[in-house]
């Protein structure tokens, strides 16, 4: 388990000895993210920004106790048992795996792999079997158990670029696909490719310590791609061969 190599969600991550299916054919971009655990201070601003940007339902205390919180991005806390004061914060979001376990199990193709590497959840197609959530090892998928309420003036804060999901539909982090789409349109108008760092999902935009970096892993000159070569780079539960597109940089603690 611990010596499974870093398997990037690109052609080079595929090995016929390990992979049954051929690699995906990504067109122009393969969106990915690098999370530097050294820089993450666990403030949670990314999670709040995600709520605001993506019209995520606020469920209330009772539902949270039942285990029905809707946060697409949550901060997992890990402590060293020998040094309980040392806390590592791990922002966990949809990993947009190249070999996503959620994709083959949806009977209606609501969980779909895009040409740019995103795992898209198509709300209109979802009939709510919840198999994708059962099959996700990271447990980042959130189901709309009820029709969430937006009592005024909260409804004025809703983002018009993002659907408000009805009950019975599964949702999860989309790498702020609405922002990717907008940037695509701008770049198309200016007849150029999207520049590195031009697309900033809400969490990346809000992080105060620059712990989250977003870009195209297919672009060898991009900041994300260069960060992936860091010796601290690893993938959460990488041994499952899901080929996640979110690569984490291990936290290194120096004792003084």
């Amino acid at each position: 388990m611990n010596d499974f190599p870093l398997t990037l969600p690109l052609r080079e991550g595929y090995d016929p000895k390990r992979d049954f299916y051929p690699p995906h054919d990504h067109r122009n971009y393969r969106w990915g993210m690098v999370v530097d655990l050294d820089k993450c201070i666990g403030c949670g601003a990314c999670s709040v920004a995600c709520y605001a940007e993506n019209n995520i339902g606020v469920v209330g205390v009772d539902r949270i106790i039942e285990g029905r919180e809707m946060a697409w991005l949550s901060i997992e806390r890990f402590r060293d048992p020998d040094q309980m004061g040392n806390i590592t914060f791990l922002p966990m979001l949809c990993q947009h795996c190249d070999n996503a376990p959620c994709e083959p199990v949806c009977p209606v193709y609501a969980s779909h792999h895009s040409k740019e590497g995103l795992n898209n959840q198509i709300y209109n197609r979802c009939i709510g079997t919840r198999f994708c959530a059962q099959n996700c090892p990271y447990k980042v998928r959130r189901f709309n158990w009820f029709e969430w309420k937006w009592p005024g003036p909260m409804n004025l804060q809703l983002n018009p670029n993002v659907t408000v999901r009805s009950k019975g539909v599964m949702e999860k982090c989309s790498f702020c696909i609405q922002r990717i789409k907008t940037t695509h349109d701008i770049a198309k108008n200016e007849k150029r490719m999207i520049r590195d760092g031009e697309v900033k999902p809400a969490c990346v935009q809000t992080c105060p310590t620059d712990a989250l970096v977003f870009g195209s892993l297919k672009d060898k000159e991009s900041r994300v791609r260069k960060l992936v070569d860091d010796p601290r780079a690893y993938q959460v539960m990488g041994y499952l061969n899901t080929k996640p597109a979110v690569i984490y940089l291990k936290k290194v603690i120096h004792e003084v």
Partner: protein
Amino acid sequence: MAQLTYDQIDQTILDSLNPPKKGYWGIVAVLLLGVLIGAASWVYQIFIGIGVGGQNNPVAWGTYLINFVFWVGIAHSGTLISAILHLFRAGWRNPIARAAETMTVFAVCIAGLFPFIHLGRVWLVHYMLPIPTQRLLWPNFMSPLMFDVIAISTYLIVSSLFWYTGLLPDLAVVRDRSTGTRHKIFKFLSLGWTGAHEQWRHYSRSYLFFAALATPLVISVHSVVSWDFALGITPGWHTTIFAPYFVAGAIHSGLAMVMILMIPLRKIFNYQKIITQNVLENVAKTIVFTGLIVGFAYATEYFIAWYSQNIVEMESFRWRATGEYRWGFFIMVLFNTMFPMLFIFKKIRRTIPLLFGICLLVNIGMWFERFVIIVGGVAHGFSPHAWGLYAPTLVEYGIMLGSFCLFFFLFILFVKHLPSISMTEMKETIEKGALDHGA
């Protein structure tokens, strides 16, 4: 013990179709009330959302899937008795074949309801059907849930046709011995059966072919249902033992359910000479066999979890036996493997109340086996941050009550309106001398 005659068989079974006592309609009313409670709970859920159940993150599948697997399992045993034992020419199954096959048809119908009940947006279930649309969108055949749709519908169609084919000569007997409305209805249902030599030839051929068609379905359908879980990545689910494990468990629970139906049926309609003690004893012996297979499967799972030395797998199975749901695990092992072993003792398997009681415990144990697998697997998965617990709610209990009441409602209507023992097969048994004279 005098040999049964054709007339005795006909009369005993046709007597069961006489107008019922008052208590009967009371029981039917109570069961119908249960069905209506279930229906109302479901309608409430459709309007308010799946949240009225107890499912959450990480346990997104709860009693609906447990009941689905439970009812499909019960259905399989009926087909084992009526189809597989027919192919093996095991004459002792003849008295219970009709009721077993009926149990199958009704259990599949109820099992088929649960995939609808557990959907988040059930009004869009047609997305799962391969209907050509303007958008050229087809369902995903890689998904185990699609395999389920095909498997369950195949099983329902084949079982229903098998059941109806077997019923034909009996429907003609009822037609010939009745008058008025009943005569008209059974005249329509018996499709013009005259008992001509040609018709008997066709009947026995098609019954044999349907039995041969239904036999592989017993193995394949429940294997497919087990792959709903085995094809998932979750520890505790992702194992190749599931297909034989589930099929053996299905037969185990179904045989117990057959006994629960047969024992009161036998008492109420005075079928003691037809469904003899020996028949019940043979079913009990088979339960010992399936109980041993199920016990072996439990042991294998633990052995493999240890042998793999995979920390996730080991932790999943450690938690199952010692975590918050250990009482469910305890019920599962005790009721499914220990209590059926009591049937090894002849005294116990010839005592009717004990037979009934232990079979009831087996059914409860098998329900808990599905609980331990479905809930226990997902509640304690890969990421400790996503560990959680689950408890069903009133709405879920209501729907579960509705499903059990619907099964017994359909069965209790069946026993009073259709011959609950196959007169044809009993007469064949006499001819072949396979009827035993056990008391």
